[in-house]
C-alpha cells in the first residue's frame, strides 16, 4: 500500500431529495481528500468515525428527511473500510471535496 493510498479518503455523497447514488440514478457525487491536508480537529473527527468496529459501516438511520449521507472509505492494511455519516456530522473540508456529476 503506497503512502498516498494510506492517506486518501474516498468520499461519496448519497441520498438527498434527488436520490443521489440510487440504482439507475443519473447523478452521482464523488470526491477525495488527502487526510494530511486536513486540520488536526478534522483529522481527529475522521479518526473517531473510523474508530468503531464493523457496526460503524452499517448505514445509520437518518432523522433528517432528504438530507445527504456521506460514504467515507479509507484503505487500511486489512482492506477498504467504509463508514456512513449524516451530512451534518461531516467536516466542511470533506463536504466541499465532492463534485456532483451528471451521468
Amino acid at each position: 500500500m503506497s503512502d498516498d493510498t494510506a492517506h486518501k479518503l474516498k468520499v461519496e455523497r448519497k441520498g438527498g431529495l434527488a436520490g443521489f447514488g440510487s440504482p439507475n440514478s443519473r447523478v452521482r457525487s464523488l470526491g477525495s481528500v488527502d487526510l494530511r491536508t486536513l486540520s488536526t480537529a478534522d483529522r481527529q473527527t475522521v479518526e473517531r468515525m473510523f474508530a468503531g468496529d464493523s457496526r460503524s459501516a452499517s448505514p445509520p438511520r437518518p432523522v433528517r428527511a432528504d438530507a445527504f449521507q456521506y460514504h467515507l472509505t479509507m484503505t487500511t492494511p486489512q482492506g477498504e473500510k467504509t463508514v456512513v455519516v449524516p451530512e451534518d456530522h461531516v467536516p466542511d473540508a470533506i463536504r466541499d471535496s465532492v463534485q456532483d456529476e451528471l451521468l
Partner: protein
Amino acid sequence: MSCTCFFVPKSVLERLANDKTLAAELRRAAFESSLLSDLLRQSRLQHGAFISASRPLSAQLEELAAQPESVVFDANHTHTLPGKTVANPGSSSDPSAKRAYTQAARVAEFYQTIFKRNSVDNAGATLVSSVHYARNYNNAMWNGTQMVYGDGDGKIFIDFTGGNDVIGHELTHGVTQYTLQLGYEDDAGGLNESLSDCFGSMFRQWEAKQTSQQADWLIGSDIIGPVAKERNVTCLRNMANPADPRTLSPQPAKYSQLSPGMDPHFTSGPPNLAFCTACKGVPGNSWDTVGQVWYHVMVTAGPKPQMTMADFAGRTRQAAVQLFEAKPEVAKSVDAGWKLIGL
C-alpha cells in the same frame, strides 16, 4: 420509535471510555459522548411521546392559531442554521426568500383549506425556512424542525425554492413527523418519501387548478438546471411512470422490486404509482377524493415508524370504502392502484 441513528454505537463509546491504553482526554470524550447518546435518545423518545400525547388536544389548539406564521432566514451560503432573519420576506427583493415565504404559506393554506389541518403539527406551528444554504447545494430538506433550501449549482439544478412541489414535499415531511412518524428505511422510508411526493404533487395541482387527468405528475420539474435539460432530464421523479428514463433517478414500479436497505427516494416509486393511478381513475381533483383517503390514513393510524406498504395499502382500501360510500369508484380506483404495483 426506534432510535439507532448514531454513527458511533454507544457500546463502542463505552469500550473506548474504558480502554486504559487510550489517552485520558480521549477516554473522557468517549465517556461524555456516551452520556450524550443517552440524553439524545431520551429526548427523542420524549419528543415522540409528546407528539402522541398532544394529538387529542390539537383540535382545541387549532382555534388558538388559525393560520401558521411563516418565517424565513438567510443561511448566506453557510452550513449554519437557521441563519439571519429575513425582514418582511413577503416583499423581499431576494426571490428565494420571497418564494420560500409565499409558497410555505400557500402550502399551509392548502392543508388548512383542503384537509382542515393547521400547520405541520395541526397546532399552528410556525413554518421556518432557510434559503441559500451552503454553496452550490443541490438539495432541499426537512431537518426535523425546519425547511432548508440550496441554490443549486446552476447546472444540474437551479434554486430549490423554484419548485412549489418541492416546498410541498418538504413541508409534508413535517406533517408525517407529527402523524405517522414514519422511519426512513425500508417500507416506512419509501412511504415517507412517497407521501411527500403525493402531497407535493397535489399542492402543485391545486395551485394550477388541474384535475388528476390534466396533471403531469412530475416531481421537481421546475428545479432542473440547463445542463441536465440538455441531457433530456425533465424532472426528479415521474409518479405516473417511475421508470421513466427522462427522470434524474428512474425508480422501480413494482413492490416486488424493493429490498431492504434501498434509498427511500428509490423505493417511493411503487406507492407513488399506486397513488397516481388511483387519482387518475377518479374524474376530478386528486385532493377531493383519493387525497382525502391518503390523508385520513396519515392522521388516524397513529404513530407507525415501521409501517409497511401493505399495511398502508390495506388502510387506504378500508378508508376509501368508509369515506366514499356513495362513490364506490374511489375504492375501486384505490384498489386498482395498489394492485398495479403488486399489493
